[in-house]
């Protein structure tokens, strides 16, 4: 079981642009397609995710380094390989973990004068991103001896981790023959959140003519901050109490937030269509159980100056060291605050052009009569997809070319080629199986590196089980 779990987790190793679900976007998988575009074309009347199995998604990894770079069994010293890897990485490289578990997902077509498809549910999400703090890593791993004169930039420190549950309810409506639109409201309940994303300042050791001592160690324009929410009340609790507390927060007892997803599908003609969506446009308001740490200031250290005072009998010596510590504390105070703060969700944008071709699926003459005359699916679809996500250091982008092939109403296969800043050879594939309304899907990308995950920078996995009534 452990091995199996390892393989499943290993499959999720690394993504170039975390959270990009290019395989599920605008595919047959109804609940997940609606989660990626609330304005997707829905052709079924009802769906229900199998609780806790409706969708599981995971990816873990980094943009600039693979397991193989460090752990290759090549006879080289691992410390040399770590050193080489660090010099290869930049502070724009990042490590990510993203995991989602659909706890509940359901939807139904509300018939009547204005037919609409409602859908809702709840999922749990863990999302973490840490940029590689190159300067700080060099300082910690190698020290400053070989880097006299180099400024170590605190701006390199940028990381964020969130554990939350999301309750959502959406409505999807075919506005006209050509346009389908949808919107989804989301209520976030944050279990734990920690972030440190807007840091600045630099540390430098320099040799300067005329300085008091050999070196000048300067901290310039320092402004660093770590925000936490949901941590302090867990301190010192037994694991069972922690679980209980987290469960309470999962059930809307955490710091709450609100967000919106919106999307459209526009059908130009029987072949060409456009889809677009914006997801997680919202924020979490951390008002309780918060703790923020801030350090701000400038300081120059020259060591300790001795002044050789003439001391009378019994007179204590000057507390140089304590004075130095007091100076540093005064010039760079570290404040602990319990104020609230607002955190924007990482908003994602999807957009795509789709082209349907080939013969129609099934044989009822080009009309899906159950579905108000909307066009019937063709066996093939190809297109181009755009994805972006707002991250602490700006937008991360990805572009995908895809091809979907349907084999009757039972099987659909989607293949993708994705290009982003870090990978130009990401090929993915997904299979969707429908047996008497029970839908099983599995999708993974970076298949070229599947034979040796150690070399992969980018693999993600989604599996799910749903019941869909057409």
């Amino acid at each position, binding site marked *: 079981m452990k091995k199996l779990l390892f*393989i*499943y987790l*290993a*499959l999720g190793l690394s993504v170039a642009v975390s959270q990009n679900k290019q395989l599920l976007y605008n595919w047959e998988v109804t609940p997940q397609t609606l989660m990626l575009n609330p304005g997707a074309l829905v052709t079924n009347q009802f769906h229900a995710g199998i609780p806790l199995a409706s969708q599981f998604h995971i990816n873990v990894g980094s943009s600039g380094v693979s*397991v*193989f770079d460090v*752990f*290759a*069994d*090549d006879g080289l*010293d*691992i*410390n040399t390989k770590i050193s080489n890897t660090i010099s290869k990485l930049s502070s724009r490289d990042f490590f990510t973990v993203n995991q989602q578990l659909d706890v509940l997902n359901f939807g139904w077509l509300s018939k009547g004068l204005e037919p609409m498809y409602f859908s809702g549910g709840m999922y749990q999400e863990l999302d973490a991103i840490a940029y590689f703090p190159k300067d700080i890593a060099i*300082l*910690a*791993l*190698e*020290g*400053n*001896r*070989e880097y*006299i004169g180099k400024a170590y930039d605190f701006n390199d420190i940028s990381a964020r981790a969130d554990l939350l549950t999301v309750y959502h309810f959406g409505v999807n409506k075919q506005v006209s023959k050509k346009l389908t639109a949808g919107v989804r409201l989301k209520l976030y309940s944050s279990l734990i959140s920690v972030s440190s994303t807007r840091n600045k300042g630099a540390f430098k*050791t320099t040799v300067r003519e005329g300085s*008091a*001592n*050999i*070196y000048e*160690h300067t901290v310039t324009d320092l402004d660093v901050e770590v925000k936490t929410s949901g941590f302090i009340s867990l301190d010192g609790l037994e694991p069972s109490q922690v679980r209980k507390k987290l469960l309470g927060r999962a059930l809307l007892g955490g710091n709450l937030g609100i967000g919106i997803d919106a999307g459209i599908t526009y059908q130009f003609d029987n072949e060409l269509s456009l889809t677009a969506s914006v997801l997680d446009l919202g924020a979490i308001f951390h008002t309780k159980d918060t703790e923020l740490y801030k350090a701000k200031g400038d300081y120059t*250290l*020259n*060591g*300790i*100056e*001795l*002044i*050789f*005072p003439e001391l009378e009998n019994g007179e204590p*010596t*000057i*507390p*140089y*060291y*304590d004075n130095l510590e007091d100076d540093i504390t005064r010039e760079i105070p570290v404040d602990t605050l319990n104020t609230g703060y607002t955190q924007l969700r990482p908003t994602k944008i999807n957009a795509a052009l789709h082209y349907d071709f080939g013969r129609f699926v099934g044989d009822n003459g080009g009309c899906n009569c159950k579905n108000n005359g909307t066009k019937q699916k063709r066996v093939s679809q190809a297109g181009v997809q755009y994805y972006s996500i707002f991250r602490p250091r700006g937008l991360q982008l990805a572009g995908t070319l895809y091809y979907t092939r349907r*084999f*009757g109403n*039972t*099987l659909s296969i989607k293949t993708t080629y994705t290009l982003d800043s870090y990978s130009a050879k990401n090929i993915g*594939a997904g*299979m969707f*199986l429908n*047996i008497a309304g029970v839908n*099983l899907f*599995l999708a*993974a990308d970076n*298949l070229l590196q*599947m*034979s*040796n*995950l*150690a070399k992969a920078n980018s693999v993600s996995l989604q599996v799910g089980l749903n019941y869909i009534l057409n």
Partner: protein
Amino acid sequence: MDVKITKLFFLLTSMLLFVSCFDGTDFDQANDVVVTPEIELDLIYFNLDASSFYNNATNTEVLVVEDTTDLDFLGGSDINDILKGADFFFKFTNSISRGFNVSFDFLSQDNVSRYLMQTTVAPGSENTPVVSYFVQSLDELQIKELTKAKKVLVTVTIPSSSQDLTGVLNLQSKTTYYLEIEQ
């Protein structure tokens, strides 16, 4: 048809899952990871005026001046475990026409000497100050002893002095710490 497709689905997904592996890697290498930062840090500095070596009030020579400072960071057990060596570097610039004996005595909290460094400084003149260097490299055993200290007593001894002695004895110093952090 459906049965065939179902079989194909499971065959392909199983292949996807089980064909993947971590080839050519050795995760035991993690045990060999050693981090060895080398840190340069200023230590102490002073500017001792020649007048410090003569007491005008009593018209007497002051042949020994001394001062003490805590160096709390030396005494921590955390640093003790990872410190594998250190180089102490002292640079004296002397414009006083006397040579000096200078000692750095690293003392424990209860003033027990843990490590003593001593050096001499060449005499100079106000017009041509003389620079003397003193470097003391400590190996792991010596640095372990030194890190039992909590403070340093600096003693500057002049062989003779007078009221009209002029100039300044300047000290600048730094330490290179060699750390080794293992798994």
